[in-house]
């Protein structure tokens, strides 16, 4: 939601390591994060803080399973769901970067590729496929997008 960024962030995990001097907190083991309508589930989450104490970015990493993230941009919007082996949440830019086995579902529309950037406020989506070096499994490696026509267009 629009005021998600102003909400407190709650984190649950099996264990954690804090390095106040470096401004980092590393949570590992069944990590769950909540901030307003934003939800993240991951194996490991690292929280980076600026010198003024504000959160700069959060990096969530999967282990066997991919990281899962969901958020509802507006009350009337469908929930956006995202999956990737690594998800970076950049607080100040209100932007999420999905890396490796990235997939994003926005209602019925879906995007998948090697890397996806999603702007939480503007809902703008950028996606990149695998470059030659990354394309080990000789899959197509290109971005895959499935867009469903809106209701108005479906009726024609």
């Amino acid at each position, binding site marked *: 939601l629009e005021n998600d960024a102003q909400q*407190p*962030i*709650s984190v649950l995990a099996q264990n*954690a*390591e*804090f*390095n106040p001097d470096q401004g980092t*907190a590393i949570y590992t083991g069944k990590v769950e994060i909540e901030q307003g309508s934003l939800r993240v589930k991951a194996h490991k989450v690292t929280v980076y*803080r600026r010198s003024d*104490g504000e959160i700069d970015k959060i990096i969530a990493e999967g282990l066997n399973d991919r990281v899962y993230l969901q958020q509802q941009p507006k009350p009337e919007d469908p929930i956006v769901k995202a999956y990737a082996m690594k998800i970076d949440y950049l607080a100040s830019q209100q932007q999420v970067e999905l890396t490796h086995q990235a997939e994003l579902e926005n209602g019925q529309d879906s995007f998948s590729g090697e890397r996806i950037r999603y702007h939480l406020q503007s809902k703008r989506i950028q996606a990149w496929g695998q470059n030659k070096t990354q394309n080990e499994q000789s899959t197509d490696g290109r971005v895959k997008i499935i867009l469903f026509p809106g209701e108005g267009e479906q009726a024609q």
Partner: protein
Amino acid sequence: MLFGKRLKKRFISLIGLMALGVAVHFLDVQRPQSFDLFSDLPDAPSEPDYYTVNSTFLEYNADGVLSRSLRSERLLHYPDIEETALVNPEIISYGSTGMPQWQAMANSGLVEGDGSHFQLNQNVIVWQISAENLSDATIEAPVDMQLSTEQLNIDMDKNQVTTDKAIKIITQEGMTSAIGLFADLTTNQITLKNQVKSLYQKQSLPLIQRTNVPESQQDK
């Protein structure tokens, strides 16, 4: 008459003696009895050789800079088992500049033989104040971090603290609870062992009286 006078004298001296006896008994009752002072402490398997009331021990490093202070309401030393029992202890560890690095207090404590291993029990609170917060402060300094638990083991030589109990940490940026902790108070690295819950939300922390810094250190 003679007999009357003598009897009167004897009677007065008897009254005097009784009054003296009452006065001595009254004073004796007022004087803190050693067993009263420590009747609330668990029975120790050996005899104490000394005790102190409202004492402060100051320890200085080789350069003559205050490194540690231990304040306690009551302290009882047991030579045979090389332990010291403390009531309401307050420990302050000073950094190389002689400013308090962190402070800890509790309802009771135990010091093992060499004096560098403490165990604090019940209502254990540890505060940490950064150097800049303290040097800017005139009367009070905002605490950077407050840790609370029910039992804490402190290794003063390594400046490390550990516990297997539930802990709660409050900083300016938020609050975290967990079960079990290891913290290195020199590198400020904190490891939380189980059931970690963090809430990132601005918190207001207590202020520490700057008077905890002995005058000799304050004007440095």
